[in-house]
């Protein structure tokens, strides 16, 4: 699975990275990422997730070929 992260998440992860995982939904993915970077727990719990530029919820079935964008809370303007 490919990941793209933004803003403050880049303090914890590479901007883009691959992760070998069988996680099939967001919650499972989050657990894997927190194992990698326990300090990112608080930030990750506030993030939205997107696949193909569409936000997804926990019902969304992730595939191994997906690229997942992790979107921290907005701070534009």
């Amino acid at each position: 699975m490919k990941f793209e992260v933004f803003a403050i998440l880049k303090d914890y992860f590479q901007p883009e990275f691959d992760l070998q995982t069988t996680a099939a939904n967001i919650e499972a993915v989050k657990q894997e990422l927190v194992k990698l970077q326990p300090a990112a727990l608080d930030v990750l719990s506030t993030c939205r997730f997107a696949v193909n530029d569409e936000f997804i919820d926990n019902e969304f079935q992730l595939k191994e070929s997906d690229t997942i964008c992790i979107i921290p809370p907005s701070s534009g303007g």
Partner: protein
Amino acid sequence: MIPSASFPPAAEDNTIFISAEPLDIVGLLSKAHHPGAGAVVLFSGEVRNDNNNKQVAFLEYEAQAAIASRMINDILQEASNKWELNIAIAQHRIGKVNICESAVLVITASPHRKEAYDANRFIIDKIKHEVPIWKREYFTDGTNKWGGNCNCNAI
């Protein structure tokens, strides 16, 4: 202008929502006059030299440009459905933005002024709270910090 610096590329669609170039306030405002509009309201969100008593040197903005552009477009559409607008324009800058420069611009035009003000505020509030754009504050003391719009969003 470098086409790839803005999204969507100008060739595909001439409406730019996310811009790596300084926002062309004058050019955009000049497009906002409409014979049916009695009121034009422009909001420019600009970089202040001070945040919570720390001296700001400049800001840097980052966006997930594809989602951000689509969401800004959707927000403008939503505002146009909610109010009678002749014109609704919004653009957010990315990259380094200096003090006094505009980071985000919203222009609304409507027959009467109440709608133009209300729609303008609705659009900027939604952009700030929902659209995937992030600010990093660089202070004059050499430190920097990923920003939140308010204390409640501070991580």
